[in-house]
């Protein structure tokens, strides 16, 4: 790539002098008023990490209750609240903000821009999030408890049969949605307008491409989610009957609308992960990414197809057979572009010169384990078989493979990969390797047996189960506790790396390519005040 000057001091014009950008205000004001993409990125990432641990604690409650048959720790009502809030926190509080944090940090640096295009909106889109989750978490302490209808909040369980915490749930989801939409608008405007000269569409790093497509998905579907929760609210409190047959509505309509949001949402949580892995694998293979163009096309096809498959979540709702066939075929079709991506990653590694630092380990684990999640996804697409898998632990195994060993592993890989760039220090490689191996073993102990439990017939979202499932559930719980504890190692590595460590070079990794590696480590407060030349 091009050689560029990254020393912004020397180019400081009058405009820069006004802002005194190397000396942001200190303390609370710095973080609360900040419009800087790196500060906001950091806030997003730390927020996501906090939510990851809170949602994780709820998972620990779930696994502790399921450790043995019978009711020991919690009552079914509270158990349902745990599964519901665990899901909401992990999806909207951990995975999505983490990706937005990465986008904030990396997109300006990757396209040669000084900052995000809409910095004040950026501040706003982050700072409403803590309120959204405070509202959601507080609802757990209401009389009658928090939402207990599952993160999918199917009507009429969430309307006629829910407690008053539903109002808080709806309000907090609205705020999360507004935050996501603003974040997405910012990403799109930044990528369209602030690319350095010469950074043509087909030269953009894949992380930027996948996030651009993700942002369009967000803008398309978050309003649908907002509409869904609003209909739930009016059905519950204002006498409408969108989802009530007695008033001319239809409870299945809820599922159609919800999954029209929900399926693209699944890809919102995985496309940026594809971008991350496409950055890491070439670096540690010391070889350019195989099939760059086909990766872009595959990502776009996945995004388009994601609008045509929503009802594969609803095969048992009693759709006409023609609709079942249509959604089965479309869903199977998604395996093709997804396969292309996996093949491209393997081809990138093929005949490279591989090294296995922690980001690469997590990226390799991502490829293998995400593919396993993809396989079970393909199995779930086969409608007749889905009648047996649907709403069992097989589905729980499937979506945790794509979300934990998929999305979360990619986020962890990204953290290890870019931490030296962000902090200017190398992380502790030994601790990182410990974190990787502990996570890898425990996560499989946690989620792999779920496939068998599901096939043997254990439904999901139950606080107690038949005796035949006892051994496997104990095993799964042990895996769960171990995976939870392993993440404390991650916390340790991050804290240690922020506080010090071997200084990182600008390029950090031998094989790293891209504009962000040409900036200093840590990079200047305003990434590129003069646009770099991109050859």
């Amino acid at each position, binding site marked *: 790539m091009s050689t560029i000057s990254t020393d912004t001091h020397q180019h400081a014009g009058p405009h820069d002098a006004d802002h005194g950008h190397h000396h942001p205000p200190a303390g609370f004001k710095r973080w609360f008023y900040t419009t800087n993409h790196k500060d906001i990125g950091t806030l997003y990432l730390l927020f996501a990490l906090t939510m990851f641990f809170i949602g994780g604690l709820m998972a620990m409650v779930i696994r502790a209750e399921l450790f043995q048959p*019978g*009711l*020991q720790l919690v009552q*079914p*009502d509270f158990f*349902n609240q745990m599964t519901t809030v665990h899901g909401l926190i992990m999806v909207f509080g951990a995975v999505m903000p983490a990706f937005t944090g990465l986008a904030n940090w990396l997109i300006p640096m990757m396209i040669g821009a000084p900052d995000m295009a809409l910095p004040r909106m950026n501040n706003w889109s982050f700072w409403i999030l803590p309120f959204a989750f405070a509202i959601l978490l507080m609802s757990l302490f209401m009389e*009658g408890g928090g939402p207990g*209808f599952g993160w999918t909040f*199917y009507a*009429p*369980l969430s309307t*006629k049969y829910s407690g*008053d915490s539903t109002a808080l749930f709806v309000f907090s989801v609205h705020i999360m949605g507004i935050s996501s939409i603003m974040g997405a608008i910012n990403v799109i405007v930044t990528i369209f307008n602030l690319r350095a000269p010469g950074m043509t569409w087909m030269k953009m790093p894949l992380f930027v491409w996948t996030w651009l497509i993700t942002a369009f998905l967000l803008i398309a579907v978050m309003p649908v989610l907002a509409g869904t929760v609003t209909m739930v609210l009016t059905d519950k409190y204002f006498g409408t009957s969108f989802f*009530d*047959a007695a008033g001319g509505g*239809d*409870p*299945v309509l809820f599922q159609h609308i919800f999954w029209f949001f929900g399926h693209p949402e699944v890809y919102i949580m995985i496309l940026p992960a594809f971008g991350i892995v496409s950055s890491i694998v070439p670096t540690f293979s*010391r*070889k350019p*990414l*195989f099939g*760059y163009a086909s990766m872009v096309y595959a990502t776009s096809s996945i995004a388009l197809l994601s609008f045509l498959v929503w009802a594969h979540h609803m095969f*048992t709702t*009693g759709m006409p057979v023609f609709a079942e*066939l249509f959604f089965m075929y479309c869903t*199977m079709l998604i*395996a*093709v572009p997804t*396969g*292309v991506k996996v093949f491209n990653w*393997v081809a990138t*590694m*093929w*005949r*490279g*010169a*591989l*090294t*296995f630092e922690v980001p690469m380990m997590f990226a*390799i684990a991502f*490829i293998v384990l995400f*593919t396993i999640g993809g396989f079970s996804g393909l*199995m779930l697409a086969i*409608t*007749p*078989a889905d*009648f*047996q898998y649907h*709403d069992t632990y097989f589905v729980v195994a499937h979506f945790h493979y794509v979300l934990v060993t998929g999305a979360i592993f990619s986020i962890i890989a990204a953290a290890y990969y870019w931490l030296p760039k962000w902090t200017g220090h190398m992380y502790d490689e030994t601790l990182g390797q410990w974190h990787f191996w502990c996570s890898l073993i425990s996560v499989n102990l946690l989620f792999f047996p779920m496939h*068998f439990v599901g*096939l*043997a017939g254990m*439904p999901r*979202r139950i606080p107690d*189960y038949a*005796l*035949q499932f*006892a051994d*496997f559930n104990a095993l799964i719980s042990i895996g769960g506790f171990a995976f939870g504890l392993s993440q404390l190692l991650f916390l340790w590595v991050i804290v240690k790396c922020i506080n010090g460590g071997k200084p990182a070079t600008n390029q950090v990794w031998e094989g790293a390519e891209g504009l962000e590696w040409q900036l200093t480590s840590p990079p200047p407060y305003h990434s590129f005040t003069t646009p770099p030349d991109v050859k």
Partner: protein
Amino acid sequence: MANTMYHRCSLLALLCVDSAIAAEMPLNMTRGVTEISQKVYDLHMTIFYICCAIGLVVFGAMFWSILHHRKAKGVQPAQFHESTKVELLWTAIPVVILVLMAIPATRTLIAMEDTSKSEVTVLVTGSQWKWHYKYLEYPVEYYSLLATPAKQIQNKLRKNENYLLEVDRPLVIPTGKKVRFLMTSDDVIHSWWVPAFAVKKDANPGFINEAWTQVDQPGTYRGQCAELCGKDHGFMPIVVVAKTPEDFDSWIRVEGERLAKLKAAEQELLSMQMSMTDAMAMGEKVYQGYCAACHQPTGTGLPGVFPALKGSKMATETGRKSDHIQIVLNGKAGTAMQAFGKQLSLQEIAAVITYERNAWDNNTGDLVQAADIQAAKNGQKE
């Protein structure tokens, strides 16, 4: 053979699993007992083996690369980075595999959705948290409730072999006949699932779904509600007993006569008076079966979700006795309180109301008789 291979692989993957508990879990989807469930099983295994084969090739190439193409071995990285030919190839091959897979899947699906030419039809109604079965061709209908005692769930008693998978009255179907199920719900969405039949269909309130099965083996088959339906979603199992047509016919005749007799007896009972002791004994049994899930065994309810009965005005003030009867008979619109008028007999309703008005220090001394309930019902009709 394929099956043992699968078992071996799964066992290997799990290294070793403690199997101290008597009930052993199968590691794979059941083949079930119907032609359809066998086909579903075959589809499941086919797609599973296809995934294994693809996984073997892809992960094989990857691990080959990890072993041989490492910098530590001093290899120089190649620089190739695109090939339209290869991309087309690995787009086309999966498409072909998927088309081959879609053909049997489509056939099976169409067969599964064909509910025509059935010989017996059962209306299955889900409600929080029990199933109701009504035979459309016979004068037989009843509720089917979880039979596992609460003490086993609370770990105060040893758990039975069929813990959480046992009911008081199972659904009975004839073997060798196509049985059609019509599914609906009284409240939230439930899902009726019996793995051995490969039947899982949502019960949607206000709508009717169809499913069917034909079981050739007499036997007992167990399943569970598969759609989150609130607090006791984990406690509404399904048990189906398949009997030979002869046994089925005699069972349904006896059952029909029994229900008819009960109805007749109920009318006679109107003139009879229950003693307080009898009413309390029967009332407690009904309460634990139908009311305790929400209002709790001790009548305290769940604050903010289900109102308490203990010390409540409804259950203690003499003036509100008729309101109490009305709410049990007709439920309360917009809440989870169901109408029990059709679910329970007059005597049972009288007993349970008596129980609620006298248990947990509610000591009103009110004794409600079946005739009072009948009067309340008649009052509505006028």
